[in-house]
């Protein structure tokens, strides 16, 4: 790829980026969130048209007009969010788009070929299973098989280990090496230095939409890569005082059971206590009941069995309004869906939970000057950039939107703050800001439950770690954290 430039309205996602990948190598594409790695790969996969630049494969210049063309050239891309249709079976997902629209489905033959391919590559999977029934790790195998089935010899993997336990990651890397011996070229998009060092032959570092450099992995060090990636020396530790000595239990969950959207039991006996003045990190591989637990705590999902206690007393947990009134506040994982109203102004969003309280309204009549003033206050105190109280929330970048939501929720002065994936998709600056605010809130004596699949985040912020596995708490850890034991707990081993 030579001099690729891709602009979006208002941003240049790729600025004259060149990338050359050798046949049969594992090439890491390293960079922070928003550095333009995924955009570059989407260009290679034909999803985006480059505004300028050229692509050549095996020395021949090519024009990639769409995913179909990319597939025909032997390119496959496994996206960070899997491109699998949940209600369809594995075989159906694999065969999708493979033949002409007029042809009949031969699922039996596909399943046979698929099983054979799976056996050869060590990616075993049941072709008849519906995708939604499979654990994420297996879904990932399906994604890879989808492209091997099409004869791909260049595989792009976007943050593949985000959904895997350390143990699964090791096994996954073994599969990648095996694929490499079969002549498959692999591009691995990641922001984790350890992975780059562990698996890649060469590494290209990107920052702010530009290519910084390409290096042989053997000739470099993690510290050097970190510096190249962030552009300055990095604080590997978040500045943090130890948690307060005096802690009282605030929120206690007893044997919680709840079902997911499909009616299956997703929480199967969660018992957990969060104390004032601490950050309790709930670690776990994605899809082990975290979303359902967050929903239960927000009051939007009903409990099948179990109880919730606040300050030692059992409380009803039936409606978000009641939950908020009891001082349990959430920063939801999906900012645009659950956190904010994109078509409301920042000021309107700022009073979403408080619009019917004084001073924002009296006897059902809104007090707009006060609401705007409050919006302005949040913008200043939380450094929400490029925003006025009357500008639309939907216009904010992910980081600034998260600041707005965090500002609103912390200003509610809660007893318990539940932060779910609070920095997913944010750049370095916004991540640091969110982390600092969470610690400040803890130091103010609040109880914080941090639900995150990002282990680094859990490790750097938590005063205590609990691990969730298949809807149960599999174990708890106290500092100093034992990483090996954490890995075992994440993988479901009883400890």
């Amino acid at each position: 790829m030579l001099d690729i430039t891709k602009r979006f309205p208002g941003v240049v996602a790729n600025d004259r980026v060149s990338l050359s990948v050798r046949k049969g190598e594992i090439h890491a594409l390293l960079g922070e969130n928003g550095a333009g790695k995924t955009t570059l790969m989407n260009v290679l996969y034909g999803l985006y048209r480059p505004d300028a630049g050229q692509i050549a494969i095996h020395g021949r210049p090519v024009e990639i007009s769409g995913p179909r063309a990319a597939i025909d050239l032997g390119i496959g891309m496994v996206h960070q969010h899997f491109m699998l249709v949940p209600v369809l079976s594995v075989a159906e997902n694999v065969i999708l788009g493979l033949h002409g629209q007029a042809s009949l489905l031969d699922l039996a033959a596909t399943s046979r070929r698929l099983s054979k391919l799976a056996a050869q590559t060590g990616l075993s999977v049941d072709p008849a299973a519906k995708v939604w029934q499979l654990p994420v790790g297996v879904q990932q195998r399906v994604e890879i098989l989808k492209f091997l089935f099409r004869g791909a010899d260049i595989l792009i993997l976007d943050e593949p280990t985000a959904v895997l336990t350390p143990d699964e990651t090791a096994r996954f890397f073994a599969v990648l090496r095996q694929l490499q011996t079969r002549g498959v070229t692999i591009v691995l998009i990641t922001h984790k230095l350890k992975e780059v060092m562990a698996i890649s032959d060469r590494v290209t570092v990107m920052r702010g939409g530009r290519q910084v450099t390409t290096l042989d992995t053997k000739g470099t060090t993690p510290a050097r890569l970190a510096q190249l990636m962030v552009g300055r020396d990095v604080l590997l530790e978040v500045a943090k005082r130890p948690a307060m000595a005096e802690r009282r239990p605030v929120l206690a969950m007893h044997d919680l059971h709840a079902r997911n959207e499909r009616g299956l039991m997703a929480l199967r006996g969660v018992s957990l206590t969060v104390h004032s003045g601490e950050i309790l990190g709930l670690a776990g591989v994605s899809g082990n009941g975290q979303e359902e637990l967050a929903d239960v705590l927000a009051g939007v999902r009903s409990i099948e069995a179990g109880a919730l206690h606040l300050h030692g007393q059992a409380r009803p947990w039936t409606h978000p309004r009641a939950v908020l009134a009891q001082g349990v506040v959430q920063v939801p994982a999906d900012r645009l869906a659950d956190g904010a109203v994109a078509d409301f102004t920042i000021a309107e969003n700022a009073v979403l939970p408080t619009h019917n309280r004084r001073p924002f309204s009296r006897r059902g009549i809104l007090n707009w000057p006060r609401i705007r003033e409050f919006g302005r206050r949040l913008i200043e105190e939380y450094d929400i950039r490029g925003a006025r109280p009357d500008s639309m929330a939907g216009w904010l970048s992910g980081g600034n939107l998260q600041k707005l939501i965090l500002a609103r929720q912390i200003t509610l002065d809660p007893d318990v703050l539940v932060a779910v994936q609070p920095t997913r998709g944010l750049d370095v600056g916004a991540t640091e800001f969110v982390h600092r605010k969470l610690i400040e809130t803890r130091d103010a004596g609040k109880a914080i439950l941090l639900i995150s699949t990002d282990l680094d985040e859990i490790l750097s912020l938590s005063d205590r770690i609990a691990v969730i596995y298949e809807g149960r708490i599999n174990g708890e850890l106290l500092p100093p954290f034992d990483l090996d034991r954490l890995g075992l707990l994440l993988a479901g081993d009883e400890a």
Partner: protein
Amino acid sequence: MDQMLTLTFMTAMLAAAFRFATPILLAALGEIFTERSGILNLGIEGVMLGGAFVGFYVMYVSGNMWLTFLAAIFAGLCMGGVLGFFYITLRANQVVVGILFSLMMVGLTSFLYRLLFHETMLGKQERLTQLPIPGLSQIPFLGEILFTQSPLTYLALLLAPVAHFLLYRTEFGLSVRAVGEHPRAADTLGVSVTRLRYLSVLIGCGAAAVGGVFFSLHFGQFLDEMLLGRGYIAVAIVIFGQWRPGRALLGAIIFGLVDAFALRLQALSITVPFQFLLMLPYVLTILALLISVRFRGDVGSPSGPHALMAPYER
């Protein structure tokens, strides 16, 4: 009440049930494809009306039933193209455009009717002729119910298994289902979301237009208000049928049964005011929607395919 229990009465009513199920079944089968691809087409009420009008006109001019069907399908495809342009290319709100299109067609067909027939109210035209199937129609009871119908009814009943086969046993059907559940996943495998959605809207509108022909041919006349919400009822049948052809068939037959029942009771001059009998289909539709809450099919959520009404953008 005695008259209701006779065999003749029952046969006639069941035969009528299949007759009345015909247009709704046709529209519902088409709408299943449309919705499975992620488009909610509330314009089918208007498309059916358009089909009814075109069918009436072509039948009047040519007298040829097959030509009439072809013309209606062609008209349906044209309307589908226009609707698809708004739904897919312009990404317009599907609810709003669909409803407005249906309302507009009332004005347009009534204008065109006057334009073509110069305000003269026509007498009843040739009706939809029955085409008894030799042999099978001789079977007692069943023969009269199932095999002494018009070609449109046979077509609708045949299309139910065809639709099932298309949806579950062909690459096209698989693509349609994928596009309506997770369009981006389909796109990344080179399946064109736009093309499949257009095709699905065209299928839906073509089928709805043929369903519309039933009205003008069955009643032998055209009125701009003759549909009485049958297009919307077809949409409800799709929901009741959990976006599956087989269950839509069942829903359409139940609906036809109620329609036939209401009509027979009216004829028997039972003391219930006829207006209440005419309400039955609409009450039933609401009940059917209530019942469907209890079931879930093989689509992404109880409220339909996951990407229903969500325009796709890369």
